[in-house]
């Protein structure tokens, strides 16, 4: 029996971003942004921040995602000392990119758009890279790419799987071509994981667009998405502007992608832990050249008697 099935996910929320959507409410009630239903905050947190009425999956800070997944005290953060630089000397009007990054960091309470590290799920070690929309729309710049690449390399060293949980507005435009090429860098890093036959699990969360969807996040071995998450390359506003057509209801949702054969599965937040535990075990077993046989003595004796070798 997997320990994981008996374990109630422990989730202690931490402080979130300050844009209201991400913030863990201080009040007694939260109002669903989709169906306006009120939920009692305690119930809401116990439900992993999924609306009990319409199933809307709230956007959550990276650190809350990690808290939902990790065994107690099992998370060790990696590379938290990396900070945004300003390779282009970029500014719009009075505000430099450097200033914007610093003020965003203090508002969002995190130094960059990615939190990475090592955690355990029911004792199974896992490298994780989780993005946080509160930091400049979780856009992919140099720090994002470097953290992901290092996490990938550490997963190879430790021979453990990699989980990426991605929401993103796309490239960090303020870093110009440096940001576009993070798509190449991160995807290239994944080839080493692949050569080591270590799995990359990718969970796409709302919203996931642009360079992230078009790179590491969708070349995973198992691509999952949260229900209702909007996922695509070009954003709906851009498409509507160019085509001057209204997009159909449900366009670019996780369910739309599933129907069009673009992702492997849609996983509700409450099922994620169990799904990951099963996947980790499955691919760990697959790495063994032959399965360990649990009830084989009689069978083995029979094979030997027939002069066939079944040992491996």
């Amino acid at each position, binding site marked *: 029996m997997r320990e994981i099935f008996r374990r109630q996910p422990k989730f202690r929320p931490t402080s979130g971003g300050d844009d209201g959507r991400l913030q863990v409410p201080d009040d007694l009630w939260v109002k669903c942004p989709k169906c306006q239903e009120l939920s009692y905050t305690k119930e809401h947190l116990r439900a992993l921040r999924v609306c009990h009425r319409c199933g809307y999956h709230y956007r959550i800070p990276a650190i809350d995602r990690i808290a939902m997944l990790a065994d107690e005290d099992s998370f060790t953060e990696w590379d938290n000392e990396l*900070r945004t630089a300003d390779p282009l000397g970029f500014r719009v009007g009075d505000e430099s990119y450097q200033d914007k990054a610093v003020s965003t960091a203090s508002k969002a309470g995190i130094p960059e758009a990615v939190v990475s590290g090592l955690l355990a799920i029911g004792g199974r070690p896992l490298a994780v890279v989780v993005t946080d929309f509160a930091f400049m729309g979780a856009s992919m710049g140099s720090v994002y790419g470097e953290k992901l690449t290092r996490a990938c390399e550490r997963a190879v060293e430790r021979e453990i799987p990699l989980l990426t949980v991605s929401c993103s507005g796309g490239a960090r435009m303020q*870093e110009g071509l440096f940001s*576009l090429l993070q798509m190449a*860098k991160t995807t290239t890093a994944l080839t080493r994981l692949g050569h080591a036959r270590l799995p990359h699990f990718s969970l796409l969360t709302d919203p996931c667009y642009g360079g992230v969807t078009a790179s590491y996040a969708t070349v995973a071995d198992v691509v999952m998405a949260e229900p209702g998450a909007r996922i695509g390359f*070009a954003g709906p506003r851009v*498409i509507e502007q160019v085509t001057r057509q209204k997009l159909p209801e449900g366009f670019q949702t996780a369910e739309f992608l599933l129907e069009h054969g673009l992702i492997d599965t849609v996983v509700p937040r409450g099922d994620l832990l169990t799904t990951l535990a099963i996947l980790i075990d499955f691919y760990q077993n697959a790495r063994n050249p032959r399965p360990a046989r649990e009830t084989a003595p009689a069978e083995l004796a029979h094979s030997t008697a027939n002069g066939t070798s079944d040992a491996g």
Partner: protein
Amino acid sequence: MPANTTMTPWDRVTVARHPQRPRALDFVGDLCDDFIELHGDRQLSDDRALIGGVATFRGRSIMVLGNQKGRNTRENLERNFGMARPQGYRKALRLMRHAEKFRLPLINFIDIPGADPGPTSEEHGQAMAIADNIHALADLEVPTIAIVIGEGGSGGALALGVADRVLMLENSVYTVASPEASASILWKDATQAPAAAAAMRITAPELLDFELIDAIIAESPPAHEDTAKAIAATGDAIEQHLSELEDVLAGEYGLQTLLDLRYQKYRKIGRWQETSKP
């Protein structure tokens, strides 16, 4: 270093988009013998915005891929203004594997304004198609050269752009988003495109300074004024870089070295700061 330092970044954008600028098939036609175009992704259709095929280049058997723009409205409609669709990326992926099978060096000509913004391309998995190509190029077991000949627009460019050597024609531009899109996103004003073109550092000399590309192919004069000269210079650059890559491949553990060098090339891209560890 080439001379045209008086041109502003926006001037270069204008030249990069010039209707008389040589197109991918012009390069292939001038530089290669016996080009056989290979069509189709074997799944959906043939994307006319992305061409590919086998050819002989100065005595070598190669695979070429290229974004193909038109020169007039009729051609541009046929070529979707050079914007590849998912079926184009999937054709490219098929031909990359073909190149690998027959050990053909891969030469990619990049000239794409940006990815196709239509809803059909989304339904057909444009993001996944681009990602698959980047992933394949990351460890494709043949020497690869990408040349930005006009516009290197965003993810669509990268789908052909992950290579052992990345070269740019002097007046080409390579962008994370077009100057117009950058202006409307960051300046909230599309008419600020010339300012965005400058701020985003999209020209070949700037990108060479950042070590994001490997070399610049001189255009004197701009390619649309002397097409033959620009194409010949491109041929010389391809030959030089291809010879160097062939030397790597010929060495001991040649293929592994080639792939390791490619890994390191992309591994080191990025600029960040480190605070002292807590």
